């Protein structure tokens, strides 16, 4: 003797593989959705990486020799720049003893004063003369003298 439930279930047991497939399809879809939602934050990083990768492939890689050449030139410029700066700094450091410094400063100040004095004199000489009209009698006096 069987219960109605036993009979019903036994009758449809053959549909189990199809039902498993249906269940799996729904769960897989759920899994995919979950993965999409979970990786929402990771998406930003991955898209950034993807973008960088694309830039590398489309911009840098095809002209890699040019970019390498440019990089080498820039490196050379930096090296030369730094080496020159270093040598001038060393030169300054070498020549900058306190006594010599004061001496050179005094000399420079003296030179500057002289230059300024000459300049003021020269400025007077070079100043344009302003013509002031005088009475005719005065000019005649000047002529006779």
């Amino acid at each position: 003797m069987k219960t109605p439930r036993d009979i019903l279930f036994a009758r449809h047991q053959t549909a189990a593989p199809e039902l498993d497939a249906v269940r799996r399809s729904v769960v897989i879809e759920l899994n995919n959705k979950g993965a999409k939602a979970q990786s929402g934050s990771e998406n930003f990083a991955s898209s950034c990486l993807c973008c960088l990768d694309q830039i590398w492939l489309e911009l840098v890689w095809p002209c890699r020799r040019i970019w390498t050449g440019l990089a080498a030139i820039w490196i050379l410029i930096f090296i030369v720049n730094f080496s020159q700066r270093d040598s001038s700094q060393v030169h300054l450091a070498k020549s900058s003893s306190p006594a010599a410094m004061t001496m050179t400063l005094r000399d420079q100040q003296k030179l500057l004063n002289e230059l300024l004095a000459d300049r003021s004199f020269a400025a007077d000489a070079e100043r344009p003369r302003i013509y002031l009209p005088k009475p005719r009698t005065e000019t005649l006096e000047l002529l006779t003298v």
Partner: protein
Amino acid sequence: MPEVADIEQLPVSQARAGEPAAWDALFRRYQLPLYVYVFELVRNEQAGLDIVQETFIAAVKHIGSLREDAKFGSWLFGIAHQKCIQRWRKRREVLFDQIPESPDEFEDGPDDLLIQRESEAEFMNLLNQLPLPQRSVLLLHFIEDFSLEEIARITEAQLGTVKSRLHYAKKTLRKLLEAKNENTA
């Protein structure tokens, strides 16, 4: 063969959190009972599978509308029942009939009707002869041993209506089986 609902152990709360493994366990538990119920109503294998799939998808989508985890089974059957009704409506079949309400002393269990091995095919044949509303109620009673309240909720019918449907369905089935047995004897 699947056991009758062991609701305490079902991972409904994990399913609410969107865990695929929990959904897999729930679907595994209910796939055959649900298919049996749907198939015996629509009488079409492909339609039955489609409705089970639609039910699973709708369950995932609308799990937020489930108020009590313990009622997951009846809630899921309710979705499947609605899907069957939608299908019937498309076919313009007559769904509801007026059955007088039964007395309140209805206390039969799902296993009170025992069927002999040689009468199994006959039982299925008789089950299919029942009107759809009676068949629906009887199937829910047989398959998952749902309470009358749960069946009323699933089928969206009044409690009294469910009682009377179940009463008359069982009475009719028993009568037909007895008549069949007498004839064979």
